Each structure stands twice: as C-alpha cells, then as structure tokens.
C-alpha cells in the first residue's frame, strides 16, 4: 500500500459522559477512496470536526503527511491541503456561486489581503472558479445567489468550495444528504472523477453508493471503529449487519 497521508492515533473525545470518540486509529493512504459509515450519532461528524480542527480532541494525535497537526487551527490545516464539506449546508447565502468559489480561490492564493485592486482583475481566479462550478454542472447558474439555488445545487456548491481550496485530502460529510437518489449517484460520479492523487474520505448512509464508490470502508459505532475492510468484507460481516439491522438501516 502507498504512503499514509492522514492518520489518527488514539483519538478520544467525550461530551460529558458520552463517548463520541474512543481511541480511534485510522490511516488513509494517498489517493484513497474510503468511506466512513455508522448509525446516527456514531460520532462520524465529530471525527471530521476533530480532523479539521473545529473540535479539539481530549487525547490523541492527528498526523497529516507525517506532521502532527493536532494543535493547528482549521485554516492552517486547509493550507496544508486538509479540506472538508459539511453535512448541513454551510454556505454564503447572499453571495453568488461564482463569488463564493472565487472567494475561496483568492484566500488560497493570498489575494484576499488586497483591498485596493478590483476583484475582476484576478481573471485567473475567476476562470478557475468557473471551471470548478462548470465541472459540477453549476456553470449556467454561477451568477445566481446561493440561497436561490436548488437544494441539490447547494450540495454541489458545498463541494465546489472545498475543491477551490485545492485539497490533498478531502473529507466529505454526507455530500448527498437530502439529495434524491436519482441525483446522488451523479454527485458521486463527480467525486469519483476527482484527480487520483486526492485522498477522499466520505461519510454516506446509502450502502449502494458506499459499495459502488468506496475501495475501503470504516465502520464506526458508539465512537469506536467496529471494523475496517474492503466492501466485500464489510458486506459479509455479521457485526455490521447486526448494527445496521438493529437500527433499521440498509442491511
């Protein structure tokens, strides 16, 4: 297996007496397409919050490209290529799609400090923003205000914003949450089409999609990794079946 890009060592987090992360050790190799699954409240989003620095773990370490980033601020991790999307839309409601993505690119390129030159002067940034939006079928609607976009388009904009930061590791928290099944597979098609050297770690409840797009699956239950393996192993695992059947989820 190729080198590890993102890893955790003994990650722990409690909310009061609730264990949301109990000694989590994961490793993501470069170019991975790994899925994180688990019942509601398993601690999946919490894990992403800790990986990206939005939540400080009680104990443990997060290693990005061999460096300990546990103490780094979220923005500093983004600069190192660790980028996320949100389960619940976390967008800029009154910015147009093109403005929002250009904003992310300007921040990445360090243009955002400039308060004298006009935005359209940064042609490359605007071109790149448009290319990202077009690659996610948002090209025609790029001048529309975010809050007026259809919900499915807003989910695509979630991903566009993350891509604008040029991720090396992309953490997707239920990118298709709330999107009808017919659309969600197109969305994952776009994710599957990302450059092969980007490491993708995604949370998804729809097992059909998980089995189709993930090369490896980590199952999280009660803040602990229950099992990790290839899709075929997970599909055959008795414990996973129990957890999912017990929660009335896809078996």
């Amino acid at each position, binding site marked *: 297996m190729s080198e590890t890009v993102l890893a955790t060592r003994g990650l722990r987090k409690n909310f009061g007496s609730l264990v949301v992360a109990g000694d989590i050790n994961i490793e993501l190799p470069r170019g991975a397409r790994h899925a994180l699954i688990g019942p509601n409240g398993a601690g999946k989003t919490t894990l992403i919050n800790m990986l*990206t620095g*939005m939540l400080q773990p009680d104990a443990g370490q997060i290693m990005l490209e061999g460096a300990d980033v546990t103490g780094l*601020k*979220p*923005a500093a991790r*983004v*600069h190192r290529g660790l*980028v*996320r999307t*949100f389960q619940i839309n*976390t*967008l*800029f*409601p*009154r*910015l*147009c799609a*093109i*403005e*929002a993505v*250009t*904003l*992310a690119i*300007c*921040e*990445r390129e360090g*243009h*955002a*400090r*400039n*308060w*004298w*030159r*006009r*935005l*359209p002067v*940064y*042609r490359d*940034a*605007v*071109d790149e*923003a*448009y*290319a990202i939006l*077009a690659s996610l079928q948002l*090209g*025609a609607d*790029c*001048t529309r205000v975010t809050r007026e976009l259809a919900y499915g388009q807003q989910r695509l904009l979630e991903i566009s*914003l*993350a891509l*604008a*930061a040029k991720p090396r590791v992309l953490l997707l928290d239920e990118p298709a949450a709330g999107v009808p099944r017919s659309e969600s597979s197109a969305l994952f098609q776009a994710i599957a089409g990302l450059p092969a050297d980007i490491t993708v770690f995604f949370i998804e409840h729809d097992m059909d999609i998980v089995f189709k797009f993930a090369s490896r699956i980590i199952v999280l239950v009660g803040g602990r990794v229950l099992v990790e393996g290839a899709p075929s192993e997970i599909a055959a695992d008795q414990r996973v079946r129990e957890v999912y059947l017990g929660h009335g989820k896809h078996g």
Partner: protein
Amino acid sequence: MAAVLPPQAAPHEFLRARTRWHPLEIVFWLSTLLPFVVVPEYLQLASQIAIAALFAISLDLILGYAGIVSIGHAAYFGLGAYTAGILSKHGIGEPVVLLVLGAIVAGVVGYASSFIIARFRHLALIMITLGICLMFYEAANLAGWLTGGADGLQGIKIGPLAGTFKFDLYGKTAYSYSLIVLFLCFLLARRLTHSPFGLSLRGIRENAVRMPAIGAPSDAHIRKVYTIAAAIAGIAGAVLAQTTSTVSLEVLGFQRSADVLVMLIMGGAGKLYGGILGSIVYMVARDQFSGINPQYWYFWIGLMMVLVVMYLPNGLLGGLEKLTARWRRSPT
C-alpha cells in the same frame, strides 16, 4: 440584446458590471453640489450631513460588510475629534494635517481594540464595543485639563483650508471641505468593497463558520477592516471639530453611536450609499421635526425606525432598489 458571450465570459462580465459606476451614482454625486445654489442657508446642515454620512460609511464597512456589530463606534469619532481639537490648540492649524493625525490616533486605538473585537460576535460584541466607548467617554470627562471635560474643549483654532479658505459662518468652506473628504473616503471604501478583501468581508458576514474551512484568516481580516473603519470614523470626527470649532463630550456619547447605527440601518447596510441616504433622511428629519416640536422629535424617529425595519428589511435604499427592479420588469 448584446452578442452572446461564451459561457466562461459571463462571470467576468457579471463581476465587472458590479464594479462599474452606475449613472445614478454620478447623478447623486453631482447633486451633492446643489445645496450651494438651492439652499445656501442650509450649508452648515449639509456639512453636518456629510460628516454623518462619512461616519455611517465607516460603520458600514464593519457592520454592513463584515457583520461586526458595534454600538460604540463613536469612540473613534470622538478620538478623531479630540485629536484634531486638542492639537489645533497647540499650534497645528493646517486642517489636512489634523485630519491625518485624527485618523492615525483613531486607527491605532481601533487596531488595539480589534484584537478583542475579532474574537467575539453578536451579543458579546455589543457589550464590548459599548464598553470601550464608555471608557473613552469617562476618560475624556476625567481628563478635564486636556479635554475641557463637561464644559467642552475651548480655544480651538483652525487655520484656513489650503492656506486660503477660512471657515466662514455660512458653512461654504465647511460644506466644501466635508464633501471633499466624504467623497475621497467614499472612493476608498468603494475600492475596498470591490476588492478580494471586500469579498472576504462579505464571506465573514455570510458565514463565519465556513471561512476557516476554506482557509480564510477571518481574525486578520476583521482586525484590518476594524482599523480602517476606526481611522475613517476618526476623520469624520476631526472634520466635525474643524468645521464647528467645538468638541464636547457628546462626540463620544452613546447617543452618537446609536444615531449612526440608526442612520445606517434605516438607509440600508452593506451598500455604502445606504448610510449616506440614511444620514440625509435622519438629519433632515431631525432638523424639521425638532423645529416643530423639539421635545418629541424622537417619537417620530422611533416610528420611522419601526416602520422601516418592518417593511423595508434592507433599508430605504433596499426598498428603492426593489421598486426600480419592479418598475424595470413591468412592460413599458
């Protein structure tokens, strides 16, 4: 119809159109010259309005664009006013030099406070900004030897503008001066809001959680805009001190912080012209109402505030924009 653009040209054209001067803007700025000929007896009021508008623009940069709530913005206005007033007593008579010094003092204090401001939001900010302003008010009150305390600063001596134009009783020089300063600061603010930095400010206002997730240093952005806004507020204060030759504690008062907030929100935050429009409406209304009924004029302002917020969530300017949009859409 214009020629059909290739799709990747559309966003460029869209963004460029936003930074372009609208004919109405030019009409507006030309009409600011009208008071000289139409109502020459009101030039002092016109000058006060220009100062209020400049103060409102400085608040708009932090509140309207970056979403930083402040009900203590008079702190910087007052610092600028006292700086210009006090230094003029000590031999610095040149108005433009005093203006720059007022901006520097207010900007430096703004920069120092910005380290606290950047760490908080919403309700906490209301308390902090108010607290800072109250402290300056009482400090100015206590330091009577320097500020004149409750009696106000005595003996302000402002030299003629550019060595030629004296500040006269009718306000001709005063209004010319206030208007020029307003226009120059407006140009600066306009550039700022159309820049990548301005876009980042709107990003902070729209979603402070997402900003770090795209790698944006929100705190640094906030510190920067807060410093700039404080400096501009300081300029507004300095212009007031120079054009009226008086500085009293009122420049640091809660009333002044509240008034500018009302002007901005009533006019429409987040569009620069909203603060200007709000200042015009508010100051003219105050002049008229208080002429009729000095005790109760806040009743009418109160009513106006409630009605505007109820029916025009984006302020008077937002209402006007909606109106013209509807008018344009309807077939002629």
